[in-house]
């Protein structure tokens, strides 16, 4: 976890308390009119998912997320940025990660949160492996996720 200039990055194996994080984020800041959160959840597409394991690159992960957050902060008017991402084993329905942005303006808060997600998806070193029916398989990166970066 690093904390500077309103940016907080957390990479951890343990579950996080989404309600408490959302409630505490930018709380008491009278100058921020708009707060956006995005939460990623382990999705059971086929109905037969047993769980997921997320591998990451300790050291690089935190640096990559901090850089993406700093770039968002340079690009939009943001008072606070939060990124939490779990690794290790997760069950269907569990929360994988969240980002939160606070800005004076709703457009900035929305765009910055989408930017964080687009870059986090394709530029932060996490890899998902799904377990279903006794087998395991690495989740393939989607072309559309790489394409989403061209928007920015």
């Amino acid at each position, binding site marked *: 976890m690093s904390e500077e200039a309103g940016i907080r990055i957390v990479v951890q194996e343990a579950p996080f308390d989404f309600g408490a994080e959302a409630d505490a984020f930018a709380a008491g800041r009278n100058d921020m009119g708009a707060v956006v959160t995005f939460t*990623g959840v382990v999705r059971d597409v086929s109905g037969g998912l047993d769980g997921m394991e*997320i*591998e*990451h*690159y300790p*050291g*690089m992960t935190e*640096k*990559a997320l901090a850089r993406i957050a700093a770039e968002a902060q340079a690009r939009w008017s943001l008072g606070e940025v939060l990124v939490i*991402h779990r690794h290790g084993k997760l069950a269907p329905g569990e929360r*994988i*990660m969240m980002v939160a942005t606070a800005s004076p303006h709703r457009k900035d808060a929305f765009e910055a949160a989408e930017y964080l*997600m687009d870059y*986090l*998806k*394709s*530029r*932060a*070193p*996490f*890899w*998902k*492996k799904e377990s279903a029916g006794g087998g395991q398989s*690495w*989740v*393939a*990166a989607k072309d559309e996720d*790489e394409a989403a970066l061209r928007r920015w």
Partner: protein
Amino acid sequence: MIDVLYFAWVRERIGMPKERLDTGAATVAALVDELRAREERYAMAFSDLSALRVAVDQELTDFDAPLAGAREVAFFPPMTGG
């Protein structure tokens, strides 16, 4: 000496997460050629570079990146976080 790290299915194919190598490779691509020549499992892991990403000292880079002064190189598939 350089630390070489493997993640996700690259780690699984090579059979270890990390190794320490004494290499004179000037670029990532040259290091990949050295590794491919060592054993079949490396040749398999590095058979399609378009399916791989590389980081030098924890920064994403290209396969033609120089290795001079680098302490750590990591190979892995495209990321799937979020």
